[in-house]
């Protein structure tokens, strides 16, 4: 289901609340912002996954050298 894009405007002086649909310009900007966000989220997730993989690999190598889990934890 596609949700309606609504703007709620609250006038702090008069307390008047107005609800209106997005203008075409606002809708276009929303799509631009959304796409940019999704692209950045994807990059951040890839970076986090790469860091987690590198950490796991390093810990495995340390364990292979004979370090105990407590000693590996102390290095963090």
């Amino acid at each position: 289901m596609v949700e309606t894009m609504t703007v709620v405007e609250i006038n702090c002086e008069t307390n008047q609340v107005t609800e209106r649909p997005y203008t075409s310009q606002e809708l276009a900007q929303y799509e631009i912002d959304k796409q940019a966000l999704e692209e950045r989220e994807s990059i951040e997730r890839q970076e986090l996954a790469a860091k987690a993989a590198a950490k796991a690999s390093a810990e495995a190598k340390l364990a292979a050298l004979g370090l105990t889990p407590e000693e590996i934890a102390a290095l963090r």
Partner: protein
Amino acid sequence: MATFKLIQAYNLTGSANTIVFDTIPQTYTDLCLYVTTYSTRGVASVESWQIRPNNSISGTEQTRIFSYPLSSPAFNSDGGPNELYSSWSGANASNFYNNVWIYIPNYTSTSVTKCLMVDNGTDNNSSEWMVSHSSMRTNSTSAITSLTLSGVSYNFQAGSSAYLYGISNA
């Protein structure tokens, strides 16, 4: 003695993507905004919304520290203004509240750029959560007369609320 006065309160009874506090009185020293956003998205995603002083994010800068279940605490220094606040909506989180408070000192000044300080925490469950702290700097010296809150990847749902306070030094 400082005073803390409610300027406006708004509770959403339906869905909306954007909430605008307009014509903000210029009679206080600082502003404080408490926002609780409610989401029913229910997919694994960082759900983000923007705050736009005077409906502009042109030239803003942001630094944030955040942590959520899939990451160690992470640091993000971002020259881009696209994502200002976010909360983690895990795959198991179909209903959750995201709580944010924002402090904006010296908002009436017409000679300095403005900074916004933000603390964010997701009210969810033990396995799905997100916390962050961020600071934002605008590149405009205009007094802040409006604050626009806008969902980037989702709509604010019924049950969301926003409270704008004015703080006076005397």
